[in-house]
């Protein structure tokens, strides 16, 4: 068990290091001089040169990478080129919006997908299955911003249950804050749930054809009990894998959804930063997102070991 976890941990850590190199390299290659950008186009060449020296941009590549990477470890991301404030302050304000949003969306998609998958698999080929999978097909095909607009129209404009956009901040109380995250979370979760439900269905159907399902039936367990007690846990591995992969898409999806719902999250921060060529902010947010995806996939790897004793090795 520990060997498996240790191995996964080492892989995750090295992926993170590799990703930081790639992000740093891409930012190096991109055109545009941050010093020139900060000073404006009227500034003289020597002024720019002076700022470049001050910002350490003239130092050789490797020490510059090490400096930047070391900063990341101590949560020192540098200063924003446009706002001239530490990037960490910008990120801190935004993370409290984006992280809960992503987690609510992830939870929602699982809560929707697994029962739908079980329902469909147990009625394979019948009307209920066809209906559920038709809905899932629609969910996969329709883009999430369209869902978002429909949800706003239905729940905010028409039923007036939740705000159409904006975020009151956590200071306004937990419920108002969560309420304003609900619609965006649903919009993010639905397409994910649609994919996940299809995966859960096919994984379950495969497991239901296994010999040990017949053994369980021969014990006298009714079909439903066999489905929940024996089949579901065995079908969890592909579901968890997809869940981990989806998390990355979920984060990418927040960029669009946060713009639709006017939420002050990381997605909008990075969107603005790209527009303003505030590369250091882009770099930092991208690294954060990469770290989040790697951590979630590490958790997925750990959960494999919880689900499947064969991965734990001999006791």
């Amino acid at each position, binding site marked *: 068990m520990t060997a498996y976890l240790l191995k996964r941990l080492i892989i995750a850590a090295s992926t993170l290091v590799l990703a930081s190199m790639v992000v740093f390299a891409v930012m190096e290659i991109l055109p545009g001089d941050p010093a020139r950008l900060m000073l404006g186009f009227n500034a003289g060449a020597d002024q720019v040169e002076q700022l470049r020296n001050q910002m350490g941009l003239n130092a050789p590549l490797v020490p510059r990478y090490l400096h930047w990477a070391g900063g990341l470890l101590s949560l020192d991301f540098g200063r924003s080129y446009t706002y001239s404030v530490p990037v960490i302050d910008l990120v801190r304000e935004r993370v409290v919006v984006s992280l809960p949003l992503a987690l609510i969306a992830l939870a929602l998609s699982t809560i929707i997908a697994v029962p739908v998958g079980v329902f469909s698999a147990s009625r394979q080929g019948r009307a209920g299955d066809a209906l559920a999978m038709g809905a899932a097909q629609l969910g996969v095909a329709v883009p999430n911003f369209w869902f978002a607009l429909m949800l706003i129209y239905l729940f905010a404009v028409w039923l007036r249950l939740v705000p159409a956009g904006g975020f009151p901040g956590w200071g306004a109380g937990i419920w108002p804050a969560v309420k304003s995250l609900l619609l965006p979370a649903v919009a993010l979760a639905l397409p994910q749930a649609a994919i996940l439900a299809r995966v859960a269905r096919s994984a379950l159907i495969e497991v239901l054809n296994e*010999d*040990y399902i017949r053994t369980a*039936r021969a*014990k*006298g367990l009714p079909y439903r009990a066999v489905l929940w*007690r024996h089949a579901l846990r065995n079908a969890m591995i592909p579901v968890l894998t997809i869940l981990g992969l989806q998390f990355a898409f979920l984060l990418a999806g927040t960029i669009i959804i946060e713009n639709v719902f006017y939420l002050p999250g990381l997605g909008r921060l990075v969107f603005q930063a790209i527009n303003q060529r505030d590369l250091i902010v882009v770099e930092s947010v991208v690294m954060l997102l990469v770290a989040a995806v790697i951590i979630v996939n590490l958790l997925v790897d750990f959960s494999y070991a919880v689900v499947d004793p064969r991965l734990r090795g001999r*006791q």
Partner: protein
Amino acid sequence: MSLLEIENLSLAIGGTPILQEVELAIAPGEVVGLVGESGSGKSMTALTIMRLLPHLARADGRVTFDGIDLLAASEDQMCTLRGDDIGMVFQEPMTALNPVKTIGEQVAEGIRWHTKAGRAEAEERARKMLDRVGLPGTKFPLSRYPHELSGGQRQRVVIAIACALKPKLLIADEPTTALDVVLQAQILDLLRDLVSENRMGLLLISHDLAVVTEMSDRLTILRRGEVMEAGDTARTLSAQHHPYTRELALASMHVPARPKTHQAGSAKPLLEVEGVSRAYPGRRMSLFRPAQPVRAVDNVSLTIEPAQSVALVGRSGCGKSTLARMILALDKPTAGAIRFRGEVITGKAEAALKPARRDMQVVFQDPYGSFDPRQKVEKLVAEPLHLLEKQPTRAERREMVAHALDEVGLGARDMDKYPHEFSGGQRQRLSIARAIITRPKLVVADEPVSALDVSIRAQILDLFAELNQKLGIAYLFITHDLTVARAMSDEVLVMHEGKIVERGRTADILDNPRSEAAQALVAAAPDLHRAIARRMQEQG
């Protein structure tokens, strides 16, 4: 009164008839064998009793168990019967257990479900049952997972699940087919004991006439969904009134004719294996102790002469297949050397191996798994031709494939078919055709007939014998089945835990085994002659 009575049972799946007017009865404490080849409807009969048939199945007739009309019973009624009054054991122990649940959970689950016993009580009963089937608590705690057990141990767990509540009827569907003969004998003993302890009725389903004869009081012979013959085991098999019964019995004992027997020491060896070992890195038990390597093959030496047929026998996991892979240069030995026609083949580059590969071909056990389903027979059989020095033209290639197909009893017209259009036996002929197309000197056959029905098996053995006589091909037969070794080989090598423990002329070894491993194999091997003789004595 009968415990189970099947009357006039017909079954169709989606309009295709599977069973027709099947009759069968089992009394308490009685063992009834249900024999037949694949597709004869044995398993479907069992699943009809369990009412676990596929969706589109339609059963007509009467199946009465303990006074209950099973075909008319509700699903709820069936759930109370299954696992409580009727238990079932399946063929494939490797997949019959849920891999994510402990063996304790899986045995206790049925007990809890049917008796409403608490967790602790159910676990205590599960413990007792596992002890009974030969898995003592000291070595097999309830917290073991299936992947930590071997095939034979898993089958014991499946039997514990099926017998945990002392069912009145146990259905065992090919319970030992996936196990080696020694394990088979142990599992059959266990079933026999459980029957006599609890006066349980046992329906034993098998394709192996010898196993059924050893076990059952009465037998029913099924063919294409119809009962051919039924009656007392001894009488049925000694009289052999029905032609199909005779056919089955003859096929089970079939020994192919091989007039030219090989004279040892008459020629320069074709294959020489010298002190070959293969070690695998062992599992690390702790962070600080280095892992002990596992020796799958341990210092093995053997020779095969041209046209000689050698059988390598041993229990599953003894290292037979690993040794075969090294001879075929599919795996590298960790020590020792293998010479083919005097040339060392170990450690050679792939290009340098070409001549050896051409003269050394292989036939695998599973005729279903060893063909790409999307390629035509012509391409599949012609596969080894890329090993030839001079590449044949398209017309020559077709000619060679047609010739090879003809030699294995198929025809040139089969060239444009796909593998799924052939039966299991025909597919094994295809793999033999593929093996002989390059005119090899040696064919390694890894359990080549153990997935086949007895009548097909007799035909394939004949084919192997014929090719040996006609083309002078030498064989290395790898098998756990001693009847195959006896029928096909001049010499037998007995392998045990990676070592060759005994070798000699086939008849000498099989009639007079000296090593413990060989004695265990011979004692456990089911033998139809012996079984019938014993039945005759018992049943008069």
